[in-house]
């Protein structure tokens, strides 16, 4: 598999196939990130596409000090934030909140999907900054300094947002 740096260089040099290979490499991570931010599959699909198109249009601005994936997450986070602010979509707490709190492990496929949706909505109901930091740290395992750069904030602010998000999720999902 070609090295990320090599693919990025080629893409910046105008190689469309190299860019498509980068899309193939990161589409699932970007999609999953946006899904957890919005709890809506159609929205996540649209914003994933927007993210990659914006990345393509701005390849010349990619500074190679950061990883390409970090840069993509930055674009995805901004796209999502702008979308949510425009649509003023406030996430309400899920109706089946208690069900997520129980030690509940659905076997049935339909129940599993419902459980996943309830979890998604619990994460997506966090305040925007906390949600972004939580997703980037917990699921994408980015370092706090990378998250701070993506958020345009300090490392300590990123850590605080993560701790606050964790506290809320413990309360919501921990059943305590």
């Amino acid at each position, binding site marked *: 598999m070609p090295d990320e740096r090599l693919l990025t260089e080629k893409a910046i040099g*105008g190689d*469309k196939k190299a*860019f*498509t290979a980068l*899309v*193939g490499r990161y*589409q*699932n991570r970007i*999609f*999953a990130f946006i*899904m*957890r931010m919005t709890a809506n599959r159609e929205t996540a*699909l649209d914003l*994933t*596409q927007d993210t*990659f*198109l*914006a990345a*393509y*249009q*701005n*390849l*010349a*601005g990619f*500074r190679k000090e*950061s990883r390409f994936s970090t*840069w993509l997450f*930055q*674009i995805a986070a*901004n*796209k999502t934030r*702008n979308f949510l*602010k425009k649509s003023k979509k406030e996430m309400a707490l899920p109706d089946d909140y208690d069900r*997520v709190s129980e*030690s509940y492990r659905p076997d049935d496929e339909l129940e599993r999907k419902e*459980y*996943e949706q309830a*979890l*998604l909505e619990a*994460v997506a109901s966090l305040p925007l900054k906390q949600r972004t930091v939580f997703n980037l*740290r*917990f*699921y994408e*395992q980015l370092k*706090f300094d990378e998250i701070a*750069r993506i*958020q*345009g*904030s*300090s490392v300590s*602010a990123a*850590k605080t947002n*993560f*701790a606050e998000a*964790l506290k809320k*999720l*413990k309360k919501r*999902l*921990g059943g*305590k």
Partner: protein
Amino acid sequence: MNCRRVKEWLDGDITSSGIELPDEIRKHVDSCNECRAYYRELLELREKLGGLNNITLTADESNQLILKIETAIDHSAQPDSKRSLARWTKIIARPVLAVAALLIITMFSTPYLPTDLTVTQEIEEILPSRTGQENFLQLLLNGDIDYLSSLLDQSSISYITDQVKPGQVDDILNDISAEEMEWLTENLKMEI
């Protein structure tokens, strides 16, 4: 190591892939009932949240996405420096030019932001509030090129640096807060 610091450490290190405990933390957790209970609680939370670990596109969605992106990029030439500059000029160069000109004048008269700042109509259109205008000046003066570079292409950055020469006055300004940055990105109507 006390319980508060152990809990802070545990909170900061939990990810979907697990928590790796260094010896010092492990020893404390093993010997402290309260922290052990806290650690177990975190592991339970991690397991629940792990239900969202495997979100992926279906094969169809993945193919469709790549096809749409390929089609879109086939119909648009990759922005080279000239195209970027043209786009840049349309979106923001005029106000930047006006601000830079204003800046050069004010830099000769005072090292601080002018309190009687007047702005051109172009700047007012993009940055309607007084705070926004001052923030934008601060951003330019502060030479926070790293952040700008995550939003703009290289030719745009070069354009700004050529116009403003950051570093001349960067010791007189404070850092821009995250909120101001957010305000700027939104109000400058940048595409990313």
